């Protein structure tokens, strides 16, 4: 009898152990122990399967670390693919709309890729790590599409999201932090450049890229060395105001810089169901990324047709009067004395550094042409009661935040 019980207990314990061995709930990035130590708010959300902080102690202060000193953001959950093989250039060049022949080893390119209908599947950055070897980094996962794109080409695609730990180190003092970290020659690294360093026997890749529109770098290292890198980085930045930041701070910064977020400012084509809910690069203001000189790339035929016929949507940056953020607002335009709804806001914030009420919006063409005056319908609540303003909005042709220090090479040692 006792033996039977023991067997049953053993089976139960074994089953428990097996269940425990399967990762459940949110994953933790290799930097999680450090983020957790710094965390005061316990405000976390899910990002591509990982737990990630909204903010660690105060979103506004974290934001100011990006603009005034250095903010460090854990971007490990960004989807990463390694692409290599004899046909890797032909592969990438056909995948994305821009000319990748021009992106030499040691360079990084922002790019979008489309389906055959010329609709944007996602945007992301492509790192030409070495001759014939690339890393593609994006918000969404794309293995099915990337694998289909490899049919008939000699190229290997490896998902490496969990293997590579990555930090964005962004802000005016980030260059000084990099110097202190002992990265020889970092002053020569130009925007959208990348270079490799030795970090205690491991390869550390540093790119001069970011999602903040400011001077900044991104650091990429094998997951096992993540904590050592974090510690060395924070030690190097101790006297330069280095701060860990969460998603809210980064989101403010990216709206100021005019950067798009997939799933927010546009929907990845493969996740849309209704016709007309996906967008072409033209409709996202990314015409500069489409190179028709290339004889073939995914979406080329459809985009050439769209260029001929005209696009349906425009993406605009809005400078809105007042100080109430235009979250989720409808956008209108006065036409022949009548107010006509022409679009909607997808991202909005009060920009602390520009002292402006800004937004990214989608409007029907041609209402988004420069010079048109638009109206934004903003609802806001005061002591439970809702109020509404029709705020005038001007179409901004340049990013709201684009300081010269972002591009200066060598960067200034703030």
């Amino acid at each position, binding site marked *: 009898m006792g033996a039977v019980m023991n067997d049953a207990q053993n089976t139960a314990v074994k089953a428990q152990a097996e269940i425990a061995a399967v990762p459940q709930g949110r994953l933790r990035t290799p930097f999680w122990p450090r983020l957790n130590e710094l965390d005061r708010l316990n405000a976390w959300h899910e990002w591509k399967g990982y737990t990630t902080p909204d903010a660690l102690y105060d979103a506004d202060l974290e934001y100011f670390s990006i603009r005034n000193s250095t903010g460090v953001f854990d971007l490990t959950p960004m989807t990463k693919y390694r692409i290599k093989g004899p*046909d890797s250039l*032909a592969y990438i060049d*056909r*995948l994305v709309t821009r000319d990748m022949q021009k992106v030499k080893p040691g360079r990084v390119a922002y790019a979008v890729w489309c*389906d*055959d*209908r010329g609709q944007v599947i996602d945007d992301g950055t492509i790192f030409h790590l070495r001759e014939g070897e690339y890393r593609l980094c994006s918000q969404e996962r794309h293995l099915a*599409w990337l694998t*289909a*794109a490899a*049919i*008939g*080409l000699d190229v290997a695609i490896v998902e490496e999201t969990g293997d590579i730990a990555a930090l964005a180190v962004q802000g005016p003092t980030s260059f000084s932090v990099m110097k202190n970290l002992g990265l020889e020659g970092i002053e020569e690294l130009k925007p959208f450049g990348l270079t490799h360093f030795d970090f205690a026997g491991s390869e550390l890749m540093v790119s001069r890229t970011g999602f903040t529109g400011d001077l900044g770098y991104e650091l990429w290292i094998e997951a096992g060395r993540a904590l050592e890198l974090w510690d060395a980085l924070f030690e190097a930045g101790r006297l330069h105001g280095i701060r860990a930041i969460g998603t809210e701070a980064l989101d403010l910064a990216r709206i100021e810089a005019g950067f798009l977020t997939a799933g927010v400012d546009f929907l990845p084509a493969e996740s849309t169901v209704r016709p007309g809910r996906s967008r072409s690069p033209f409709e996202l203001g990314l015409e500069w990324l489409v190179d028709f000189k290339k*004889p*073939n*790339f*995914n*979406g*080329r*035929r459809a985009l050439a047709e769209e260029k001929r016929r005209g696009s349906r949507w425009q993406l605009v940056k809005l400078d809105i009067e007042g100080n109430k953020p235009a979250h989720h607002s409808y956008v209108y335009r006065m036409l022949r004395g009548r107010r006509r709804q022409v679009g909607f806001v997808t991202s909005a914030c009060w920009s602390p550094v520009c002292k402006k009420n800004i937004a990214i919006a989608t409007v029907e063409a041609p209402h988004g042409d420069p010079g048109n005056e638009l109206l934004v319908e903003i609802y806001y609540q005061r002591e439970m009661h809702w109020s509404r303003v029709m705020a005038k909005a001007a179409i901004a042709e340049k990013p709201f935040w684009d300081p010269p220090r972002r591009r200066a090479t060598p960067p200034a040692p703030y």
Partner: protein
Amino acid sequence: MTERYDAIVVGAGHNGLVCAALLGRAGRKVLVLEAADEVGGAARTRRFAEGFTVSACAHLLYQVQPEVVGELGISLPRAAEGLSTIALSRDGRHVRLNGARVEGVDDADQAQWRDFHRRMTRFADLLAKYLNRIPPRLANGTRRDVLTLAELGLDLRRLGREEMREFLRLIGMNIYDEVEERFQSPLLKGAVSLDAVLGTHLGPRSPNTILTYLYRLCGDHGRASLPAGGMGAVAEALAQCARGHGVTIRTGMPVRRIVVDNGRAAGVETENGETFSSWTIVSNADPKRTLLGLVGSRHLETGFTRRIANLRSRGNAAKLHLALDGLPAFDGLERKELGDRLLIAPDADYVERAFNPAKYGEMSPEPVLEITVPSFRDASLAPTGKHVLSAIVQYAPYQLKAGWSDAAREALKKRAIETIAAYAPDLPGRIVAAELLSPADIEAEFGISGGHWHHAELTLDQFLFVRPVPGAAQYRMPLDGLWLCGAGTHPGGGISGACGRNAARIILKQQKPA
């Protein structure tokens, strides 16, 4: 210096020849390049033993479209027309079918057959009308596309309420349920089942086998005829016609690749290194071979490439050729009936059971066979007094789990011969020479991906507006200057010439001579 043509046709299959002839007739300077030393592709006559020749792949004509022969002004050499179909029985009580007539079944089955045949031929006639049309586009269609669609709807409606309902009920259905509902005679059920699945990777219980049955009836209502001199003679007649229209045909010239220049097809390069230029490249090869092989995915977009790569095109039929020193004696069959079409498909379940192993990459232990003895009607195929037997053997999956080794081929050959010998016991003793072409052999010999004679399975999702794949149904490929004209396009496989004719028409319509 490369020579420039108005159009280059890759592959001298019967559709390629029809297309070339029609382009030539319209005054175009056309070059046809064929890999083999003879024209015809899968419509070829093959010498498989000293003095014995046979149609190498397709061996009967069902679906030659009158529009094709009419426009080309040719007559195809036929040794016999209106062949009867005989469903063989082990006890010698065979069932004989010819059009609306059936012998060897009871009165109830006779009546059912007449009704079934009337309805099926009516539906097939409706379908046949659209085989000879360029399929309309559903999205972004021109006015002509919309009119064709409207006409299709109207034609359906014109069938009458009840018949239209029947058509819509049957079109996606399987043949098994229909024969079980109608007929008593196992032989009759087996024969109809075989006709529905011959040459496909489908069993009688697979959905959509009514469609494949109707497809077979398009043209001659299922009555087969036998080409004189083998199928190669049909191809030769087409080639003669093409040459008469000024078309240059060069055999023994395998195309290595289709040259793409700045995003458009600009010519072809042959294996011997010669290049030929043209802004119109028409491929008679199957979609996979054309697009993934000759063009290459790097010149195409990803979504399209994926669709082509996923095209279902796994052949499941082998071809058996026997050289005989005399006519075999089939139990219960008169000698003159050896000139007809003989089926080994004793009942519908037998056919389905034969299909079962094919799903898992194994060949049928008891195969289904369509047998002809063409030399009975056409003495040119064998030495005097001797004969050839040509049979389609199903099922023999292209992706045979164990691979198509010599041993596998021998095993299937043995099974096929044994299966026939159960009905014609003296057959094995009469065999002088034998060969079996597996789907892998057919792929290698005729350059058809997967060895599938339709190039792409004939199913509703690969039919009409969506053949070979959605977005490329009008013969024009999403690479400027590249067209398809083979069985992989609408309407599909079989010796019909409709693919080649439709392709030629749209090419002539959309491209005025330079």
